[in-house]
């Protein structure tokens, strides 16, 4: 049975695309079929991430200018670029399939304009529902991973409505925390009442590295300050989690090497020994249990 996981957030830049891409690729590496949908229709990024220029996009599918087969791209060969941590190639049964949103300004306007007209809005929604149904029936996918638009927007809410599980990624700044509370109250509540599972996914959490200037033995007060920051973060998360009744599925520390790598690409496969790869594995284990 296909599991449909949507990555969502209140703000942009919380790592949805990076984590969803790494997750999808790792699932495929493990021999599963993962279909990654770029439904961040207003600011699509996966074309750039995978360096792939599709002939047909999800926009074409929604407007009936393409079939599902034309918009789902088999990117499984990408997996072979990266040896696994035991030096083996990926499980040949695994598939990484990706459908991209159009990056064309006109296409984005067109989609945005069409949802403002009731006639075309319902037609697009119908096609959107069909997209998931066709992926399930034609590709026998183990996972559909949706990279949604942040915030409360038409296509992100539609994406959440078709998902079985929502991973709400957040950084731990004040705006994101407030926004997350808003999402939980305004949107997630009604979804979870109807069976959708939702979890917090903390990204760029403190606690991975001790800044070099604090690592010296003589800086015990600074180290204490750092420890306090990490502890405070833990308290904030516990409170948030309790307030909005959402468990934390994973906490990914702020890995500077990923954060500031302008060419970050499937780190979980590229550096299988990196703790980030371990986090993605842990996420997969959690998702399998849901």
């Amino acid at each position, binding site marked *: 049975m296909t599991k449909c996981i949507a990555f969502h957030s209140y703000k942009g830049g919380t790592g949805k695309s990076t984590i969803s891409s790494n997750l999808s690729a790792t699932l495929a590496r493990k021999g599963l079929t993962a279909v990654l949908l770029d439904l961040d229709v207003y600011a699509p990024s996966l074309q750039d991430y995978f360096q792939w220029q599709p002939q047909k996009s999800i926009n074409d599918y929604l407007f009936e200018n393409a079939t599902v087969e034309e918009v789902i791209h088999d990117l499984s060969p990408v997996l072979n670029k990266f040896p696994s941590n035991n030096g083996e190639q990926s499980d040949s049964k695994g598939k990484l399939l990706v459908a991209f949103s159009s990056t064309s300004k006109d296409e984005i306007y067109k989609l945005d304009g069409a949802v403002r007209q009731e006639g075309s809005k319902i037609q697009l929604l119908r096609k959107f529902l069909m997209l998931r149904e066709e992926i399930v029936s034609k590709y026998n996918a183990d996972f559909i991973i949706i990279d949604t638009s942040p915030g409360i927007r038409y296509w992100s809410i539609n994406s959440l409505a078709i998902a079985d599980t929502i991973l709400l990624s957040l950084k731990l700044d004040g705006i994101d925390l407030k926004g997350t509370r808003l999402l939980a109250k305004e949107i997630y509540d009604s979804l979870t009442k109807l069976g*959708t599972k939702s979890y917090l996914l903390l990204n760029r959490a403190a606690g991975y590295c001790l800044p070099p200037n604090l690592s010296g033995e003589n800086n015990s007060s600074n180290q204490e300050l750092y420890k306090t920051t990490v502890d405070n973060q833990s308290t904030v998360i516990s409170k948030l989690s309790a307030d909005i009744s959402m468990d934390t599925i994973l906490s990914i520390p702020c890995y500077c090497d990923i954060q500031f790598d302008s060419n970050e690409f499937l780190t979980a496969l590229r550096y299988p020994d990196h703790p980030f790869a371990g986090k993605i594995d842990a996420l997969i284990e959690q998702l399998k249990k849901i």
Partner: protein
Amino acid sequence: MPKLSIPGFSSLVGQAATEKFDSGIILLMSPPGGGKTLYCRQMIIESLQNGSACIYINSSMTRKEYQNLFDTITDEKIDKLKFLNPYLVSTSNKESDPSASINEPKLSATLQEVQNTIDQWSSVTNTNTETTQESTSSLNDHTKYAIVLDSLTHMFTLFEEDKVLKFVNALSFLIKELEATALITMSGTQSSNGAILNKLSSIFDIVIEIEAQEDSDKIKRKLKLVSIKGGGGSKSASAPFNIEEDGKLKFESEASAKSKLSICGLCKAPILEEPEYYLDMPFHHNHVSIYMKLAGAFGQARVSDVGPSGVIDAAFFFVDVVGLSDPALSVRRQIEKIEALNDMIGHCDTFKKASDKRVLPTGDGMAIGFMLSPESPLQLGIDLHQALKKYNSHTNKQDGSFLDVRIGLASGSVFIVNDVNSNQNIWGPGIIFARRVMDVGDGGHILLAGPLAESLLALDDKYRSFVNLLGDFQVKHGQIIKIYSAYSPNEFGNSAIPGRFKS
């Protein structure tokens, strides 16, 4: 295999759930005049016809009334129907009553009669199986039993409440033991029967009710699902029905719901399987929860934008072959042209890719309704003209082989209807409009009705280069419509003003 019938039940919970349900106790509530007794009659008659055996318990009915109620049942079937009136039942055998705890001789005797009847039928079953091969008309090991108690409300007027409740309780054990199905009726509604329902709630597997509303000179009835143990179905599911002159219940959902196609409340596409209901709206099975989620997220008012509708909006492509009825054209040539047109349209990419479309052959052409994209009809017109260019490069006008068509495009509402072959088709103002627009044109024209053209122009700038306003035109019945013409010289369409337009 004998089967029980529960009229209208499949419309409430779906065919699969109906087939799974083969024993249990159903409570039917109905206002006076709702048709409880006739519902019981229908269940009994259909169950007998399916080879089951039935016991009908009615405390307000005389034997004569019972006979009149079931006078259509054949002698052979009536042997498998036992009538009991607890008020009139003989109490002589009460000593052997295993349910003396009821402490009401007539009710105990009734229960005993039920047991005796079943025993008697079982012994017939055994005799039958010992002496003869299995006969479809005889009771056999697989016989299903239906016990109908009509009505509990009347029993309360004759007997003390706690004794009736004990009787029902004892009866329920018997039913479970027999793996039978029981239908128990009550007058009133869920709220008016609240106290009794609470006392008996653990007994009932399914609670249904008849809703009756007076509408001008007739009563509109529908069967509704109130609750079902273990879930399943939708609490908003309902099955409208009529009571015909001969007392038969005719369920719309069973008799005609399949022919009266439902439109999904979320995606507005036709529902080809058994619909699921939520807030009395039909949905595709997997769209109910998505609708509910969207309603929760967007708010009911906004999600109602995509809510139910008796009609669907579509965009239409209407085409016919110009001059097909010319007497100078042989029938063979006419057929060739129609076949060529059908073949060309069938090979157009737009036609192949459109996943939700309806095609109506019209004799000298066809109408195609596109449910999803308003762009599809014009794109199909362009595709077809390009295919025609290739086709006509091998034809000539002198021998009549040249294929010329005119095309009309419009958008609007249509109903989904079933044709005589039970195929789902569309009909309504949208499609008629496209025909009217097409009729304005001459060969080579791709004409668009104003609303469709204007929505395309608003949708994408590319249309501005080839969708041109012709002006207002008066069509049939004095209706004035704005007409646009799509053309691009040497590629598609006809830049000339249509003859009818000039005149």
